[in-house]
């Protein structure tokens, strides 16, 4: 009998792995051959950054993962990717050569990088099951970490705290509003419309609106 138990927090937030139908993979044109990422000296940062950019693309007027590189999002993502070794990433980088005319993942055009991920998700075209396992591990763990960091509002996710862990208030924060999101930057919360903590003005509006129900 299987027994599967998850924490309440995890359970409430959990909704299973995403899925998407595999699409046909064209041979396409070469892209980025000038990027001289050598297999023997893998740039771990470049790999994670490229996967992140593929997972949450950036377009003109539509910021995404790459827009936050100036705020070192890849460094943040890499902080908790210990489960992926350099060898794993190397296998991931080289794995595309079989399907994309000898080009590594880092050498692929963005659209082909997406095709490569779809191919890994589908798995049917990769006959070596051990290799497939590694490729899928890299994809899944990086995806989980990238989505988690991005949609937890990096880099506007941190509330400064004192040594006792008590949030340090902003000077203008007269009512202990500690929502760290700003209008200066488009983050995961902005994209998904998540509003987090109310402002004092929003609170007051709600109090006015719902006060009639308070006498219960």
């Amino acid at each position, binding site marked *: *009998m*299987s*027994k*599967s*138990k*998850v*924490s*309440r*927090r995890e*359970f*409430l*937030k*959990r*909704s*299973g*792995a*995403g*899925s*998407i139908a595999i699409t046909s993979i064209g041979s396409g044109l070469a892209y980025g051959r000038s990027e001289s990422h050598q297999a023997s000296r893998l740039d771990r940062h470049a790999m994670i950054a490229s996967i992140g950019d*593929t*997972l*949450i693309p950036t*377009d003109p007027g*539509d910021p995404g993962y790459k827009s936050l590189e100036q705020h070192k999002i890849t460094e943040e993502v890499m902080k908790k990717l210990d489960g992926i070794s350099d060898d794993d990433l190397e296998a991931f980088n080289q794995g595309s050569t079989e399907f994309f005319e000898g080009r590594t993942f880092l050498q692929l055009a963005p659209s082909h990088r*997406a095709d490569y*991920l*779809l191919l890994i998700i589908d798995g049917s075209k990769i006959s070596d099951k051990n290799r497939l396992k590694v490729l899928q591990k890299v994809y899944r763990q990086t995806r989980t970490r990238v*989505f*988690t960091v*991005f*949609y*937890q*509002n*990096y880099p506007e*996710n*941190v509330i400064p705290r004192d040594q006792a*862990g*008590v*949030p340090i208030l902003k000077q203008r924060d007269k*009512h*202990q509003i*500690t929502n*760290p999101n700003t209008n200066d930057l488009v983050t*995961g*919360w902005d*994209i*998904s*419309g*998540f*509003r*987090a*903590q*109310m402002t004092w003005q929003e*609170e007051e509006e*709600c*109090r006015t609106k*719902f006060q009639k*129900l*308070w006498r*219960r």
Partner: protein
Amino acid sequence: MQTQKNYDVIIIGSGVGGSILAAHLAAKGVNPKNGEQLRIAMLEAGPYWKGEPRPGYGIPSRRQLITNVFSDDAPERMWPWGMVKMVGGTTMHYGASVYLPYSVDYKHWVDEGTDWTEDACRGAAAEVEKIYNIHTEPDEVLSKGCLMFRDAARALGREVHSAQVARRNCIYCGFCEGGYFCRYDSKMNAMTTYIPLAEKHGVDIIPNATVDRVIIEKRGARPTATGVAFQQGGAMVELKAPNIIVSAGVIGTPRLLFMSGYGSKEELGAKLIVENNNIGKHLDIHAAIIVHAYFDEVIKDGSRGAAPAGYFFLDDAGPNAYGRLRIKDSGMIGVDEPWGLAFSPFAPAFGREHKQFMKQARMHRGGTLVVLKKPEGYRGYINLRTSQMEYEGNEIIVKRLREGGEMSREVLQKMGAKKIVGYDMPPIYHIAHGISTCKAGSDPKVSVVNPNFESHDVSGLFICDGSVVPRSSSGDAVGPIATVCVLAAQRITANHFRK
């Protein structure tokens, strides 16, 4: 070891049970020898975020501590579900979903060997209803999705009920569920209800005090509880009192008694002081699954709302709430956190489609929560060394959860869901709301305390929390626990603290 002043009563734990006992005993109990007010200490392992509650607003000091921002939750402020160590206990981060005991619960309690009849508990239940401000929310603060669930379930012949919540002056920020604290003091918990009363009546609340053991001495033929030993600020402290009330919760209470040498000979070996084979046993919990649905139309705001209000229906597999399922709308109201939404079964795996999904999904995603109270005859236990709840799955649980999943699918389909996921999945289920690990009963062979909450085996020792409640059919535990603890306070006061 330091020794501090003596008390008449020491209460261990300040959650739903401890807070009720402290407030009642301090207000109504007296030392029977001299008629003076009881000297009561309430020990809590965690901090005390002190302050008179101001429902609807909150107070500056607590507002500053409660950020409601998941990504920056400081590790020292995070506790596993049901294991909160701070004044207020688990009520600080529960979902404010509170159901008073059903008639069948009283029947179960009597069947288990107590005299906790509906008549006996009526006053206690009424008090909990009032103090916790238990009510249903009007439709005007619910989402379109909640109302669609109600109408679809009714159209399928279900008797639909309004969900009950314990809140006061709520401004519907949407953060009730998911383990968040309430910065507005609107969630009715121990901190906003009984703890201020206890303090007003002179109870010494001693925070950051981790109790190592109840001191049990063998005086003559019968062991007696004489005090507690606890750690505070790196020092070991001993407090003496002739009456010890353990209210450390469904896990903490049996664990503490075990650490005190009170338990089974088999597990304690040479450390055994008092034998009782029921400590940590008889765990009653619920199992649950979530069924996810995606709608073409906008069904909610996705950022704010009256969670966990809404609607539900019940389905029993037999008489006396046997195999009871509670199927409630879920995810139809309140915040939909993007870091969870990104992994929704409806989300494209990545890329522009995924990003587009993230821009609108919070307004289109909903589902149901299927809660199964354990089928009769199946019980778990607490691993007293690891403090883990252990509960084996079985084919009846799987069958009933799948039946609940199918009932959910029917309703969601009737609502017009475009996609439905999870109703037929292998049961990855969640367990929560444990009770009954030191259960009450008249027979010492199958219980730990008598119906008056006195230990069968140790004089001066009382247990008053979820661990004594033999069973609950509602799926949530605070209502039955609070009701039983008010009854406990009434009985302990009447039997031990009257002049």
